[in-house]
């Protein structure tokens, strides 16, 4: 049995072309981009090219891209950097975020509370969507930063970033969006979105783990997270992860070429999965039915706990994830599903299938055939189910 990987929201296989570009970089261009000699100049050239590729996929110019070690660092850099920077300028100390953000955003905001910032967490509706009116109500004269994700990692819901950003910026706040899940999968254009800061990560788009970037609009000042050499225009010191960055550049180029066709293909699979699985009794779709990432399926199977479901799927060769307890060392059910109004128990039984390049129509068939029997088995085990 060929395993079926449907956890592309967690991470993606590295594209063979990306691996090739990284190997070539390690074998032929191992120099330090800060070095004066030929090895250094060659490395610098590759660094510049990769920056241009990543910038191009989000409609930015290369000098607006700062490479980081991933999405988490980009989020932290944006949030700590903008909040502390704005406060230093005396602009205030109020931050707004949403209840469905990734922990990299939520926990950074929480840490800022300890530094004396006030944080407003916007609610979402039952589809996981932030409403513009909620932001309008929350904005204050001392709001320095609004950070709301582009697409949610658990339920795929896409937020109205354009409207939110326009509103926040009109009130003088810096606007950051975590686009880790959307970048490379649906169109992301920093100018159209009108954001000041945008985070992305390579390993979600068939690039390597350990590389990401932060887009910083012209004129936006950030207090750095760390100090050292003069790399990345002093905004992010440390010898550049050149092979990783080259891989990110390559992945961005490939995404740019294939994004539209791939989004159409995966939307078809997504809809087959949603429609097929919704035919089972006691199933709920989480997230917006249409305004969601092409890659994302998220369903709650009542009376079933997520980890057990994942393990059963795993035994059938299906790799998926869950917003349940246990998945990542945390025992709490998904804060995203709870924020959308799900009960503790139902949130516990959620299944996330995230599609990607390697998936085929047959994978969809296999899953549609396999899940019903597993659900039945687990329900038979469940004290909550009176079948």
């Amino acid at each position, binding site marked *: 049995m060929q395993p079926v990987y449907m956890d592309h929201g967690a991470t993606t296989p590295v594209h063979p072309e990306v691996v090739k570009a990284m190997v070539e970089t390690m074998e032929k261009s191992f120099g330090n981009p800060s070095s004066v000699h030929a090895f250094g100049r060659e490395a610098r050239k590759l660094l510049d090219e990769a920056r241009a590729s990543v910038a191009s996929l989000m409609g930015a110019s290369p000098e607006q891209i700062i490479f980081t070690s991933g999405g988490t660092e980009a989020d932290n850099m944006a949030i700590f950097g903008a909040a502390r920077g704005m406060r230093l300028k005396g602009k205030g100390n109020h931050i707004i975020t949403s209840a469905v953000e990734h922990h990299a955003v939520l926990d950074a905001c929480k840490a800022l509370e300890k530094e004396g910032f006030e944080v407003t967490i916007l609610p979402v509706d039952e589809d996981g969507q932030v409403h513009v009116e909620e932001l309008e109500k929350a904005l204050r004269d001392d709001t320095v930063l609004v950070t709301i994700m582009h697409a949610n990692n658990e339920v795929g819901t896409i937020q109205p970033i354009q409207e939110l950003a326009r509103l926040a910026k009109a009130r003088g706040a810096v606007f950051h969006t975590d686009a880790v899940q959307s970048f490379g999968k649906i169109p992301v254009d920093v100018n159209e979105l009108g954001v000041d800061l945008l985070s992305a990560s390579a390993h979600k788009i068939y690039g390597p783990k350990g590389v990401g970037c932060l887009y910083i609009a012209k004129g936006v000042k950030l207090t750095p997270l760390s100090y050292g050499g003069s790399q990345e225009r002093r905004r992010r010191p440390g010898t550049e992860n050149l092979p990783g960055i080259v891989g990110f550049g390559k992945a961005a180029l490939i995404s740019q070429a294939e994004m539209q066709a791939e989004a159409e293909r995966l939307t078809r699979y997504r809809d087959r999965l949603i429609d097929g699985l919704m035919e089972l009794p006691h199933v709920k779709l989480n997230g917006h039915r249409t305004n969601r990432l092409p890659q994302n399926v998220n369903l709650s199977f009542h009376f*079933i*706990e997520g980890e057990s479901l994942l393990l059963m799927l795993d035994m059938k060769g299906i790799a998926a994830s869950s917003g349940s*307890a246990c998945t990542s060392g945390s025992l709490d059910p998904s804060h995203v599903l709870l924020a959308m109004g799900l009960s503790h128990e139902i949130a516990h039984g959620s299944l996330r299938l995230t599609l990607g390049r390697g998936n085929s129509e047959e994978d969809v068939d296999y899953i549609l055939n396999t899940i019903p029997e597993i659900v039945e088995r687990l329900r038979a085990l469940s004290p909550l189910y009176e079948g």
Partner: protein
Amino acid sequence: MYTEKVMEHFANPRNVGEIEEASGVGEVGNASCGDIMRISIQVEDNIIKDIKFKTFGCGAAIATSSVCTELVKGKSIDEALELTNQAVADALGGLPPAKMHCSNLAAEALHEAIADYKAKQGKE
């Protein structure tokens, strides 16, 4: 993450179900994670003749439920009361540290079922 033993019990859980007209039933929720387990026992001459469980919980919860029923089936209720969550975990070849709390579920549900049995017997 899990030992083979855990996965074996998870894949083929023993004694799943509910005993109709049970001598005692225990149902507990796990304080740490909210997961739930129900154990029903049939007691004759102070011996646990039959035992069945239903669990809404993680892989460790299901495996510990299963092994726990196996460990006490045929034992006296006094022996069964001595069963600790550590013993349950040990019988599975250990649990990851973050999963030790899951083994509480089985031991506690069993103790509750016995208490229920005793209460019904008017022995308490």
